[in-house]
C-alpha cells in the first residue's frame, strides 16, 4: 500500500514537472537604459558662462548700436520709474533658459524678429520689466553700468568690473548673501559633496537672478502625486462570502 502510494506520488510529481512550462531562456544583454533625467542646468545663462562656453556674446557689446561718445538717456515715466526701451525689451528675458521650467512638454522654440531680438511670448509679457528690489531707486541703469563705457560694470565705490565679473558687483551691495554664496549655502551647487570624489559646480549670481529683475522667475510646477490608475487597481471581484 505504502509503496503503491509512493509510486503514485512520484509519478504525479514527474508529470507535473514535465508539463510545467520551461523557464524562458536568458535574454541577451541590452544596452543600459538612459540615465534618469537630472537636469542640472540653471534657469539663466550668466555672461561669464556664455563667454566661457564660446557662445554668441555679441549681445553683450553695447557699442554695436550705441554711439560711444554719446551718453544714453534713461527713459522715465511721469512717476520717475525707468521705462524699458523698446530695443531692450528682451533684456530681462534673453538669457533665460526656457528648458529649466518647461521640462514636461515639448521643447520651447524662441521666435526672433528681423533685428534678431527675442519676441517675448504673451505668457511672459509681464515678466519683462526693470524691477531690481522693492525700491524704484535701484532701477537706475547707471547704478551698475558705467555711463562712459556701457559694457563695463562699476560698483558704488567706483571699482570697474567686466561683464563677466558680475558676481563681484552684486557682492558690493549684498554682503551677507555673498558670504553665504562663498560658503556654498546661497544658490545651487551640483556635483559631489565629497570633494575628493569629484568636482563641484558653482553658479554665478546671474545664473539664477536677472540683474535687471532679480526675483527668481515663477516656474511651472511638475504634476502632484497621482491617484492610482484603473490598471493598477482592477475592479474588486465579487466578495467570496456575501453578507446575508
Amino acid at each position, binding site marked *: *500500500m505504502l509503496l503503491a*502510494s509512493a509510486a*503514485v*506520488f512520484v509519478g*504525479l510529481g514527474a508529470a*507535473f514537472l514535465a*508539463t*510545467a*512550462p520551461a*523557464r*524562458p531562456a*536568458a*535574454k541577451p*544583454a*541590452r*544596452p*543600459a*537604459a*538612459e*540615465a*534618469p*533625467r*537630472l*537636469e*542640472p542646468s*540653471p*534657469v539663466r545663462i550668466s555672461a561669464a558662462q556664455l563667454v566661457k562656453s564660446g557662445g554668441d556674446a555679441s549681445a553683450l557689446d553695447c557699442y554695436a548700436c550705441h554711439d560711444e561718445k554719446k551718453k544714453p538717456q534713461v527713459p522715465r515715466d511721469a512717476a520717475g520709474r525707468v521705462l524699458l526701451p523698446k530695443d531692450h525689451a528682451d533684456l530681462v528675458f534673453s538669457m533665460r533658459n526656457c528648458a529649466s521650467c518647461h*521640462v514636461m512638454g515639448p521643447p520651447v522654440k524662441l521666435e526672433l524678429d528681423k533685428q534678431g531680438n527675442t519676441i517675448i511670448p504673451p505668457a511672459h509679457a509681464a515678466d519683462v520689466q526693470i524691477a531690481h528690489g522693492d525700491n524704484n531707486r535701484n532701477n537706475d541703469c547707471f547704478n551698475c553700468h558705467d555711463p562712459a563705457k556701457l559694457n563695463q560694470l562699476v560698483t558704488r565705490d567706483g571699482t570697474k568690473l567686466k561683464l563677466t565679473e558680475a558676481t563681484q558687483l552684486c557682492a558690493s551691495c549684498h554682503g*551677507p548673501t555673498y558670504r553665504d554664496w562663498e*560658503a*556654498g*549655502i*546661497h*544658490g*545651487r*551647487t*551640483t*556635483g*559631489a*559633496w*565629497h570633494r575628493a*570624489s*569629484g568636482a563641484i559646480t558653482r*553658479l554665478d549670481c546671474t545664473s*539664477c537672478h536677472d540683474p535687471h529683475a532679480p526675483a*527668481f522667475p*515663477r*516656474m*511651472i*510646477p*511638475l*504634476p*502632484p*502625486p*497621482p491617484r*492610482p*490608475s484603473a*490598471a*493598477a*487597481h482592477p475592479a474588486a471581484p465579487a466578495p467570496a462570502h456575501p453578507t446575508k
Partner: protein
Amino acid sequence: MSPTPPPGSPAPAEPRSMSRRSFLRGSTVMAAGVAAIAAGLAPLRKLEDFGSVEEFLRTHYLELTPEKMKEVLARIERGVEKQYGLRPHVRDYRPMNGVEFVYALNLTRCVGCRKCVHACVAENNQSRDPAIEYIRVLKMPNGTFDLEKGDHGYTPASVREPGFFYMPVQCHQCKNPPCVKVCPVKATWTEADGITVIDYNWCIGCRYCEAACPYFARRFNFAEPSIPKEKLNPNMSYLGNQPRHKGVMEKCHFCIQRTRAGLYPACLEVCPTGARKFGNILDPNSEVSYILKNKRVFVLKEEVGTLPRFFYYFDV
C-alpha cells in the same frame, strides 16, 4: 471475525491482508485525494518562475558574507535583466568612515516646483503606476506650521504663489527612529552614516513602520511596481534603488547609490533654487556644518523626540 481456532488444530493459512472490497474502497479514496492534491497544485503551473532555493533561503543583509553578497548581487542583476531586459549594475555601497549625513532645506528658497519629487522617482526606480513618491511637497499658508493646513495637490499655472511657503517632507533619517523600533523582523535599521535603510528582501510588509513614522515618509507597495523599461536607472544598490516587489516598504535613503559614492542626492542636484543642502556634519568645513552653525535651523515635530537629521531653516 473468524472464531479463534481450537488448540491443536493446524495453523490456518495467513489471513489475506486486504479484501477486494477494502482495496477498492481504499483506491477510490486515494484517487480522490490525488485528484484533490493535483487540483490544489494546479495554480503552480501558471507560475513562470519558481524562484531559486537560495532566494527562498535568503539571508539578512547584515549576515551576508562578502562571497555570499557577490552571489546575491548577481542574482538580483539576473532577476532585473529577466524582468526588464536590461543588465543593471547592482552594487553594495558601504558607509564611508567619519561620515554622518545631514540634510538642510531652506524654506525661504523653495518655490514648490516639485522637480525634486520627480528626479527622486527617476533616480530611485519608484513604481510609476501605482505611483510611489518619497518626497511630499506641502503648500503651507504663511504664518502657520499646522500640517493639517498643508496642501500637497496644488496645481497652479506657476509657482511660487504669494502668501504661501512650500515645505518638502521626506524621510528625516532620525537618530531615534520609531520605524526601526517597531519592525518585528529587523528589516530596517540605521547605518553608521546615519541613513536608515530597509532590506527589501527581508521586509515582511506588516507596515508597522509606516504607522510609526510621524513624517509619512514610508511607502508601501500595494501592487507589483511598474516601471517602463526605458526609464529604469541601471545604477542600482542593494539597500537603495534596486527594483522592489509587491508587499515591501520603501522610503528615501538619501540616494545611497549616489551619496555613498560622494555625489549629491538627486533631489539636490535638480533643485533650481539651491534650497537643498547636503553633506557630512562631522566635517567642520562642510556646507551643512556652516548652516547648523550660522542659521536658525529647526526640525519638524521636535516634540516627538525622533532627533531628525533633516533640518529646515529660513533666511533672508
